[in-house]
């Protein structure tokens, strides 16, 4: 074998297995899913072509629209809750505004390691009539019969779930920001302090501009992560009561694996992908603006 073909064979051996598995498990099913979404199929008979009918059905279904609203709430909490909070916490530790930053960092990061199923059941317990939230509220309100009724409200049923999402993931953003803050040269900050800059000025003029890129990256993570959110809500409420806490991923799961509407389920998953790409595109446009603002 010549040197050239030897190199080519080695390349194939090295990269081939990963590419094959990836193509087989992810790329091929996505294409398959796209074509299934134009059909009506129960999984047993032959798929029947119905054009865009499934998409029309989805977009006119109030359950889907409520799920869409819920998932947008999750995206909003991730972007406007987790990211700023994570940043504040990271900043506090990075600037050593407190003693024992390492300890706090470790504790706040802890929920990331716990499975969403465990988190869901734990919080269900906390909110249950025999849970610490209920006990605390009974003490504060001096009402021994208090129980949490928020899940029965169509408008506010998502609030506890949004809080738990904040609880679970803020630590991850914090850790990412700490690592990136540490890459800012300390001499820049020292110089600013010598020039008499206040804490607020250091943050606004020195630190934030150099963090724009990483905040963008985490915003992308937040969006794709939010649209994937399934485990926590599925384990906590199953989307109930009466679809109040349903998100699109649960909607897809139930329609596919409980009602065997494979074509419909595929169409929902295509909608999820389009939505996720659309939101990420939007974020990209917004951050381009920011970048230009700082350059100017």
């Amino acid at each position, binding site marked *: 074998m010549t040197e050239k073909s*030897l190199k080519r064979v*080695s390349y194939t051996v*090295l*990269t081939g297995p*990963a590419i094959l*598995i*990836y193509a*087989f*498990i*992810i790329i*091929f*099913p*996505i294409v*398959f*899913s796209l074509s*299934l979404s134009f059909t009506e199929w129960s999984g047993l008979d032959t798929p029947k072509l119905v054009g865009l009918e499934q998409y029309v059905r989805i977009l006119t279904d109030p359950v889907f629209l409520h799920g869409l609203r819920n998932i947008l709430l999750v995206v909003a909490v991730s972007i406007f809750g987790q990211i700023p909070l994570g940043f504040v*916490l990271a900043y*506090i530790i990075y600037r050593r505004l407190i003693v024992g930053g390492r300890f*706090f960092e*470790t504790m706040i*990061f*802890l929920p990331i*390691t*716990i*499975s*969403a*199923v*465990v988190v*869901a059941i*734990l919080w269900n*317990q*906390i909110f249950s009539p*025999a*849970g*610490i939230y*209920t*006990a605390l509220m009974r003490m504060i309100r001096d009402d021994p019969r208090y129980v949490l009724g928020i899940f029965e409200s169509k408008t506010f049923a998502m609030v506890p779930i949004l809080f738990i999402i904040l609880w679970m993931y803020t630590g*991850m953003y914090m*850790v*990412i920001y*700490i*690592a*990136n803050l540490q890459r800012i040269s300390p001499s820049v900050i020292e110089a600013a302090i010598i020039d008499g800059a*206040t*804490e607020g000025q250091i943050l606004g003029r020195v630190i934030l501009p150099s963090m724009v890129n*990483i905040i963008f*990256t985490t915003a992308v993570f937040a969006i794709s992560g939010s*649209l994937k959110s*399934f*485990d926590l809500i599925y*384990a906590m409420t199953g989307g109930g009561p009466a679809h109040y806490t349903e998100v699109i*991923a649960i909607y897809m*799961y139930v329609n596919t*694996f409980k009602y065997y509407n*494979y074509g419909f*389920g595929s169409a929902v*998953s295509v909608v*999820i992908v389009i939505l*996720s*790409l659309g939101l990420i595109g939007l974020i990209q446009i917004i951050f381009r603006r920011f970048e230009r603002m700082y350059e100017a």
Partner: protein
Amino acid sequence: MSSEIRQKNVGWNLAAYIIMIIFTVLTVGPLVWLLYSSVKPHFDIIRNVFGLPKTFYVQNYVQAWNLAHLGILMLNSIFYSTVATAITTLLALAAGYGFAKFKYKISGFFYFFFIMGLLITVHSVLVPLFVMETRLRIDDTRLGVILPYVAFGLPFSIYLATSYIRGIPDSLEAAAVIDGASYLRIFKDIIIPICTPVVATMLIFSFLANWNELIFVLTLTSKATLRSLPVGVLAFAGGKTRNYGLQFAVLVIATLPMIMFYVFSHNQLARGFAAGALKE
């Protein structure tokens, strides 16, 4: 002037402490409550929610372990996580070496393909994957679980491996090529040893994701003997039992291995999360 600055700083520090302490109490409080409630009998939990355990009620754990079949769930979780993590990491390193060091044009295309995978949700492939596995008769098998674990682990691991290996100077392997070493030999003897730090991150990261995974096992298996810890915990503590002591014991058993793992690997894990977002 200087006293004014100091006063301002005291304000900042105070605010910082308040924020940090509130957040930490909110994070750790529920976990501490879970831990000590798990050794209280059911009626003690209901009667006195906050009360510390009067006795160490181990029966919760014994019963939970047997009733929820935690032994088999634990073994399955260990098996899936270990095998999938090992395969993902090895394949990702090999592919990362290929993409980073073989100057083929097509590498850029493949690499982009994998990076796009970071945005793909599991749910968008679930239906066809289920149909495919049923047709190939690998649904309800361990292979049928491990394959998607590997596939979904690859994008991030390849991303970590490729960006790390790109940073290794070309001269190192060029010398080996001149000495007549084969590429696979270089991969094994030079690349893998240099990659140790990033390999540690990849292993931890991928293991954690696999350990906590729910939906693949939920949809692709139906046999009780193939189910993993999250699926089993959901079925048991999320429905089958109304005994709070048992529920808490199950949650602790499912959580403790990862928390211990986390305490030991904290630095590496934190760095891994950060590395993922570093180079954009």
